[in-house]
């Protein structure tokens, strides 16, 4: 079980799933909301994975339902990275910002992400934006702390001092001298972050806080077809397996990215580093 074997498999599966999610809507034989047969009909001609609780084609909905899972998770991670980097850079560069920003960040780190989601969803109503926002917010503390530490280390370097001595503004120093040098650190755990974001977005959609039926979404499909697990297991197992395989592939693929960014040799045997602590714990 070598690293390259596991990683290559994971990246291959990941590529396939992403391609299927992007191209799915064009490949699907039916529109996602069409009724093609009786509810919970077993697989047969015309519906290779059977039908769902309303009689929709499971295979078609599966092909339509990947975009939201991947898209929303990527949006949430990107938003979290952007906000976390902004907070981390500000805290690392200015002592006053540090005092003002990091205390709330430390508190937020100890707050279960579910509570953030619960408060936002109850406060402003269900919807995609709430789920993406809560997931991004759950990512901010970890990213902000990593970025702040990296900035504190980078700002003592000669080129930053030179840039400051030249009289360049903080903003330009942050954008041109610091960010490019801490990008690798910032992105090193992006795989586990995306994977955690997929889990959180999918979980929120499953609980009904985000997307609403009849949207085709893997998490929603699991939720709405659960009652028919005994009758038509494919309607539940197909989307559940898709999410499972996606998160695992993203996580393992991300580990490989982390190893490359850490500067370690890419094709080593799988050997987690001693500082291999999950991203969410930092």
């Amino acid at each position: 079980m070598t690293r390259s074997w596991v990683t290559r498999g994971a990246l291959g599966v990941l590529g396939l799933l992403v391609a299927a999610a992007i191209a799915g809507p064009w490949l699907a034989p039916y529109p996602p909301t069409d009724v093609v047969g009786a509810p919970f009909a077993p697989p047969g001609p015309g519906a290779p994975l059977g039908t769902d609780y309303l009689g929709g084609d499971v295979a078609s909905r599966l092909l339509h339902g990947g975009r939201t899972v991947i898209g929303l998770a990527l949006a949430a991670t990107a938003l979290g990275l952007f906000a976390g980097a902004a907070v981390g850079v500000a805290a690392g560069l200015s002592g006053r910002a540090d005092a003002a920003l990091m205390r709330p960040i430390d508190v937020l780190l100890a707050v279960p992400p579910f509570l953030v989601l619960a408060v936002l969803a109850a406060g402003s109503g269900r919807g995609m934006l709430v789920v993406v926002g809560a997931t991004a917010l759950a990512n901010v503390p970890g990213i902000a702390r990593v970025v702040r530490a990296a900035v504190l280390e980078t700002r003592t370097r000669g080129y930053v001092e030179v840039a400051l001595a030249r009289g360049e503004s903080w903003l330009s120093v942050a954008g041109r001298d610091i960010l490019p040098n801490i990008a690798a650190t910032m992105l090193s755990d992006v795989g586990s972050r995306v994977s955690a974001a997929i889990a959180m977005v999918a979980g929120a959609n499953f609980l009904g806080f985000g997307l609403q039926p009849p949207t085709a979404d893997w998490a929603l499909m699991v939720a709405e077809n659960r009652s028919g697990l005994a009758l038509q297991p494919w309607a539940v197992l197909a989307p559940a397996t898709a999410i499972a395989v996606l998160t695992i592939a993203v996580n393992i693929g991300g580990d490989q990215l982390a190893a490359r960014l850490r500067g370690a040799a890419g094709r080593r045997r799988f050997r987690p580093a001693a500082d291999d602590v999950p991203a969410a714990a930092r």
Partner: protein
Amino acid sequence: MTSYVLGRLAAAAGVVWAASVAIFAAMQLLPGDAVDVIYAKGAGSGTVSPEQKAQLRAELGLDRPVVDRYVDWMSGVLRGDLGRSLFSGREVTEIVGARLPNTLALAAVAAVCLAPLAIALGAWAGARAGAARDRVISIGSVTLGSLPEFVTATLLIAVFAFAWPVLPAVSLVAPGTSPLLTPEVLVLPVVTLLAVMAPQTIRMVRAQMAEAMTSPYVRMARLHGIPERRIVTRHALRNALAPAMPLLAGSITWLVGGIVVVETVFNYPGVSQDLVRAIAQRDLPYVQSVTLLFAVVTATGYLAADLAVVALAPRLRTTPGWRR
């Protein structure tokens, strides 16, 4: 020692207070208040005049200053009055009180299973970092830990309740009895929670253990000819656990989210079903009080972990300001 404990207590109280402000502020600042929710629920919300809304706001006390309402809420909470549900009109304490023991039982069983399992597997893997068993545990935990709770739960139900029906798919608990009396309903929910939480803690303990095994005192112990098993259990593990403890406590943050999903999937009679309904219906007073309750539980967990660290690692008792 005393000042350290008092300091941690004050910090925990501070976190809970900050959480109460944040929860309250989010409920007040986000668009739409309880009155909008009540009228949006009834048919023909477009016909409600601003006067009617203003009158209902006055009845519910929503026209008073924000600070007054916050003080009202908090003084109620401190007296054990969590307010009333917007929809059923029942006391929140009454709705939650009947089901809280079930949720706590599930959480307690999961936590009691989690700590030994994660510590044992993490230490076993970390004691020989890089060996085959370390790779298997590391890859296994990455794989299991990346699955969302509802996927793990659904797959477990498909296998153990349908394909090979040995356990119930739905956790039926007769009202008034404890789930602990019917342990079979707890098995799948607890296994799901473990599958989601254990990987994180295993990786943490493993990382600390791997580090401890490279330390000078372990080399010294080896040179003294102390058996490897004893080095691992007596020398390395104790020191590896101290830094891992706060991170172990961090798994509470996953437990809170995980338990809500697990209770939903298994129709487990805990607080989550009402909470999920309340969030979906925007039952603001209910969500406000129950999320605060969860925040208190989380802060208590962190506090317990901090105190456990002091108990574990004696040298830390002399440095009051020590963290992590």
